[in-house]
């Protein structure tokens, strides 16, 4: 679920980092854990991770910025990840995406002004035989058209 994140604090961040730090190659597990707790990776976490893992801040920043998943800002209450890959394109994903962007009034990676929905592009959800597809707050949706996506967004909001 996207809703229900706790606000970032240095203390909570440090505790989460410490809990994951003993794994080998802990950077990604730490970043995932931070994002699961706060909804994003706060800039204040970068020096904490660097110190814990004995890396430079530049190295940690490099990892955070390399991966599409890690957000640097809090997301909306709902997260819509709409597939833009070829299998969904073959069933009209481009037109569906235009409809969703227009309806929400946002572009990719943006959150609606009321903070309700963040729209993320995704390149394949493995739902390629039931496209066009999306994940709404982690729940898979298939065989989408304008009406079905509108109904799903209405239910969520």
């Amino acid at each position, binding site marked *: 679920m996207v809703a229900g994140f706790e606000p970032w604090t240095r203390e909570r961040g440090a505790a989460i980092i410490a809990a994951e730090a003993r*794994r*080998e*190659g*802990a*950077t*990604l*597990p730490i*970043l*995932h854990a931070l994002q699961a707790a706060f909804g994003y990776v706060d800039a204040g976490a970068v020096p904490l991770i660097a110190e814990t*893992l004995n890396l430079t801040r530049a*190295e940690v920043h*490099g*990892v955070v910025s*390399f*991966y*599409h*998943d*890690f957000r640097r800002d809090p997301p909306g209450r709902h997260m819509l*990840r709409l597939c833009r*890959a*070829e*299998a*969904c*394109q*073959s*069933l009209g994903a481009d037109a569906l995406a235009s409809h969703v962007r227009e309806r929400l009034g946002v572009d990719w990676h943006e959150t609606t002004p009321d903070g309700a929905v963040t729209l993320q592009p*995704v*390149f*394949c*959800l*493995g*739902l*390629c*035989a*039931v*496209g066009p*597809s999306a*994940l709404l707050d*982690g*729940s*898979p*949706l*298939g*065989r989408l058209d304008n009406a079905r996506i509108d109904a799903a967004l209405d239910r969520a909001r």
Partner: protein
Amino acid sequence: MSTRVFIPRDAASLALGADQVAAFLRQAADVEIVRTGSRGLFWLEPMVEVATAAGRIAYGPVSLGDIPGLIEAGMLTGGAHKLRLGRPEEIPWLARQTRLTFARCGIVDPLSLEDYRAHDGLKGLARAIEIGPAATIETVTQSGLRGRGGAGFPTGIKWKTAADAKGERKFIVCNADEGDSGTFADRMLMEGDPFVLIEGMAIAGIAVGATKGYVYTRSEYPHAIATFDAALDVARRDGVLGANVLGSSHAFDIEQRVGAGAYVCGEETSLLDSLEGRRGQVRAKPPLPAHKGLFGMPTVINNVVSLASVPIILTAGAEFYREIGMGRSRGTMPIQLAGNIKYGGLFEAGFGVTLGELVNDIGGGTLTGRPVRAVQVGGPLGAYFPPALFDTPFDYEAFAARDGLIGHGGIVVFDDTVDLAKQARFAMEFCAEESCGKCTPCRIGSVRGMEVIDRIAAGEQPEANLDLLRDLCHTMKFGSLCALGGFIPYPVMSALEHFPEDFRATQRAAAE
């Protein structure tokens, strides 16, 4: 007594309402619901199976509104109804497959080791322990199994190399970063039969002398991640994983790690960098991962389907597996029929079935009912083939001979509304977005490729720019460090070669 009813929990079935069907049915009738994986006939999902005296009887696709009528028709005893499909194994689409790797998927409760054992599970691992590492590697080599992730490298040779390499630790890494559009075999297996992957990895660990395995699963698969983690807990509790695998002297454990949305991490060396906690950048080879892989140690890195095919090879023997297939492609391939296709899903068959059979006979043509114009085989890095090439057999070498690739076995069908110039542009755009940035042909070439295709589309010096695009593709193909930049020319050049009119059409439209 409650009737046992089987309803899939595969993400694609959930996308079509399987959870709602299960919840409704639980309220409406006296049933014991078992959540399974999917059999892979996605146009029939949600597919509900009822345990009757005559075996399981399937109904589908079941929507919420159908349920009262189904119950009235005697669904719980296999009664007649327009959605009744009969015994699932007799549905022709399933009956004509050769289900080896996916033998249990859709049938068993994915988290029940009892179910897994009852369906021949763990026999391969027991056999590997009995015959020892050298004979296990020899069996895998003799089976002819090649990497199902796309590269097609012989699995047994990879294992032998890692087994012979010196290192204080060795690792088995499973590549579950199934990023190719049109593919979902790894996801289905991890959601529907996770123990077969655990078993395959444990066999690999014993064979090469590794005690730790990592599965790197893409974050876009939250259901696969949850099911696989739960399966790992069950396997540990039962002694399938741990200090004494199945009571033997071999130790092996597995940890699942989650990717973070980078397509390039499906490339094995960038996956290793990502596992080590860094940016997922491609490494130059040599050294091979089998010599110096994860944390500099000898590492076997295999795709989910490769590892999950090993238990049946150990159970039934190399000879049995090798007899299926064609040419140098031995055994079965789980082919994924996707995109604009009427009967989409997972079709496991021996190598050699033709593209035309797959798309038209098995897939039933397009979902929209319009003519098939192009199919992309092998994901975003695969070639677009026109129906004129539908006699190509599904085989690593046959596709390579026609400037294509089978990749991870995904086939995406497009109808006659597709614009191949646009698809070629998308390929370059995707490459630009996903490039790890390490080598110039991929990092810069993909951006320049987009620009050149835009100029062609705008009608600017089309001939000169087409030459430039061909030259650029040549540079990317031979100058890139990995398959991302190296294979992006396949969709671009195949679109240009087989559908040149689309590139001219956009020029005409622009000129008007």
